[in-house]
């Protein structure tokens, strides 16, 4: 039985791995975006649970990037698709559903660049980095559209259930954020100035330098 299963799965090993990594990336990205929106939500404490949410946000973001990398790289071994490095890294050039796959590649690059820019925010500038970091949600949405358009399991009930369960909280938080976004230009300077004041009082906050 196991032998039969292993021989039957042989040609599809990379393909299944890529699909599983894509599903994991989708769920992790939803969790990360949700945690990020929670951190920036009004009334969330900076310490205690707020600090934990920050650590969780960072860990989820890194896990998402790892899963996205596995999702793309595993496809290189697939015997049926046979994509090249360019196919999986340059949007809209691949042979398999180029539009939907291209959206996913754009989303993946966007998440990687905006996520990793966290470690270069001192050189980018805090306020500029914050305004750039907001676009992460857009790339996350691109990823979800990619999973629905190009995903092999997009019509499977369990996949749709997982998508709704993981993405719904983040979508609700994002909608709430967008609804009160007219007030955000006034809030942002306050948030920045309060953080600066805290840092001048206590020195650099360790969780950010970590």
């Amino acid at each position: 039985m196991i032998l039969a299963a292993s021989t039957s799965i042989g040609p599809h090993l990379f393909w299944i791995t890529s699909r599983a990594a894509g599903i994991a990336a989708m769920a992790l990205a939803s969790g990360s975006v949700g945690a990020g929106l929670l951190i920036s939500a009004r009334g969330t404490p900076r310490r205690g649970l707020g600090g934990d949410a920050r650590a969780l946000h960072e860990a989820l973001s890194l896990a998402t990037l790892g899963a996205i990398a596995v999702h793309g790289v595993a496809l290189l071994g697939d015997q049926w698709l046979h994509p090249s490095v360019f196919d999986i890294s340059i949007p809209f050039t691949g042979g398999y559903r180029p539009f939907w796959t291209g959206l996913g590649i754009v989303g993946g690059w966007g998440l990687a660049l905006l996520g990793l820019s966290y470690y270069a925010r001192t050189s980018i500038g805090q306020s500029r980095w914050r305004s750039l970091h907001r676009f992460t949600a857009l790339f996350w949405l691109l990823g979800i559209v990619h999973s629905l358009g190009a995903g092999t399991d997009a019509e499977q009930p369990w996949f749709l259930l997982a998508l709704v369960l993981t993405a719904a909280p983040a979508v609700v938080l994002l909608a709430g954020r967008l609804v009160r976004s007219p007030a955000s230009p006034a809030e942002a300077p306050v948030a920045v100035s309060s953080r600066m004041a805290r840092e001048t009082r206590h020195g650099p906050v360790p969780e950010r330098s970590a």
Partner: protein
Amino acid sequence: MDDLKRLEAKGLARAKIRAKRRRVSSIRGRTIRGALGLFALAWAILFAQLVSGNDPALSRASSVRKAVAASQRTHERPRSQPVESPEVEEPEAVVPIEEEAVPVEEEVPLEEEAAPEVEEPEAEFAPEPEPEPAPVITSSS
């Protein structure tokens, strides 16, 4: 006294920092374990789908293959069905030649088109079975 208080405050601060680092590292560890578990779960679901033959892409491909094969059969069947067996098919190809040889008998030209499939085998077997009928009668008797 001030020194003692300072030392206590420093100790407290260090303890807090240590506790925070521990908490952050435990969050990271749990997140990594959760991510790996999620990946393994998704992989197991996809594996089960594949092994049970319910994989969406493969079942779609196989159903397309079946449909194509079925349509090919339906195109072929109308030709092969009336003949029923390959034994009868062969004579069809062979008989016309014999007919042409036999039809020297003059009358057939009009009937040839209507009756070739049914009559030909008989015509083909007709010359050979002549010696056979005798044994058939003997066996039945």
